[in-house]
């Protein structure tokens, strides 16, 4: 422990709680965003309807939407005088999940839509040519696109874990309740508490590195299979 302290790194219960809360937030937000974004992306590719192009444009706009603006919008919805104020969600974990889902779900649906547009028609034609029914065709599309979907989920998770603006606004950065790694780093820097800020920064860096390793592993696995 002394070694870490001499390196300027501090590990205490608060830091561990912050890391756990951040991971929980990223996982829950990514799962909910995936449940919404993957079917929506596939629906957009598969079904033609009036106004589809506008929906795609809105989705693409949301993909690059500044998180602080999303945070502000969710704040206005959840504030006591806002339309959803009676649910008293502001400055709670669910509020942060809502904000992150608003940020990540369009990213996932947009990326799934693009992948599906490139791959799904030929997979569907193959399935039909083999005599597959609708359900078997749908399952085959999912199976054949699984690697793309992994990459998309990892991208969503990475976006979630590094997000700061929106969770700061709707979560309020409350100690032991809504403080995440990014909001804690921001606060600790203001307080001049660089030891804990560095520790969290390194953990965040470590998580990003692990995510990157996982993506590389998937890519290499795919390449190995292709070369065999």
């Amino acid at each position: 422990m002394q070694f870490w302290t001499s390196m300027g790194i501090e590990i205490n219960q608060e830091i561990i709680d912050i890391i756990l809360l951040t991971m929980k937030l990223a996982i829950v937000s990514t799962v909910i965003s995936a449940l919404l974004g993957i079917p929506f992306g596939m629906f957009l590719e598969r079904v033609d309807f009036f106004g589809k192009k506008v929906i795609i444009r809105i989705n693409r706009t949301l993909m690059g939407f500044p998180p602080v603006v999303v945070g502000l919008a969710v704040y206005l919805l959840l504030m006591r005088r806002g339309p959803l104020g009676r649910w008293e969600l502001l400055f709670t974990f669910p509020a942060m999940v809502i904000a992150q889902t608003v940020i990540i779900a369009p990213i996932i649906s947009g990326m799934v839509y693009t992948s599906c547009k490139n791959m799904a028609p030929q997979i569907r034609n193959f399935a039909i040519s083999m005599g597959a029914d609708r359900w078997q065709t749908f399952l085959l599309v999912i199976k054949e696109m699984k690697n793309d979907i992994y990459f998309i989920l990892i991208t969503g998770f990475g976006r979630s874990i590094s997000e700061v603006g929106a969770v700061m606004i709707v979560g309020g950065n409350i100690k032991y309740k809504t403080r995440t790694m990014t909001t804690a780093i921001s606060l600790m820097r203001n307080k001049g508490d660089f030891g804990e800020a560095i520790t969290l920064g390194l953990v965040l860096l470590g998580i990003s590195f692990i995510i990157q390793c996982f993506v590389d592993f998937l890519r290499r696995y795919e390449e190995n299979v292709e070369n065999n």
Partner: protein
Amino acid sequence: MLKIIKLEKKIGDFQLNVNDLRLEEKKIHGIIGNNGSGKSTLIKLMTGLLKPDTEIMDFGTLTKQDIVITVPRPYMLHDTVYNNLTYPLKIRKQVIKKETIMEWIDRCGLSGKEKQYAPSLSSGERQKLSLARALIFEPRVIFIDETMANMDPDSVVLFEQIISEIQLKKPATWIIVSHQLTHIYKLCQCIHFMDAGSILASGTPDEILLNSDNPVIRQYLSKYMIGN
């Protein structure tokens, strides 16, 4: 008898209009004609890969699972050669016997490649695999769209033998689209010549390929007979 009473499809400036085409079951039919005459469009409409504008067809007791189509650039599942061959059996809930799969792998000249990643096969090997995959579940109707175009002469002979063996043991209905007229002449019992989206003439190989007086057919034959 596969009856096409009326089949219409407009794609851009092209209009397919096939009336009263009858394909006798358990026979090998060839469809020939210039590029853009509608051969591939016709078989895609018959197999459900394309949606017709008008459709009056009677395929008797045939279901979707009795029909298969192979295309010039076949889709390979992101899996091994072996698992590509099991797919049509799986969707039909047929028993997968390893010896049957291995027999087909040997039969189509892919011995030793059962564990290879199917998308990494050469284009000729992909076509062999796509044919084996189409034949493995013993379909009642087989549509072949230019699938032998990229095969070497030995492989074409091999598949001609396979088709002949199938016709002896358990005859199926074949509809083969090809410009390889020698191959069509050898295999088919009936040939349909397509021009500008319609069937211009139907008859035996001798009637169409050797004794036709139709100037359009004669012009086509003068182009394709050389080297075929």
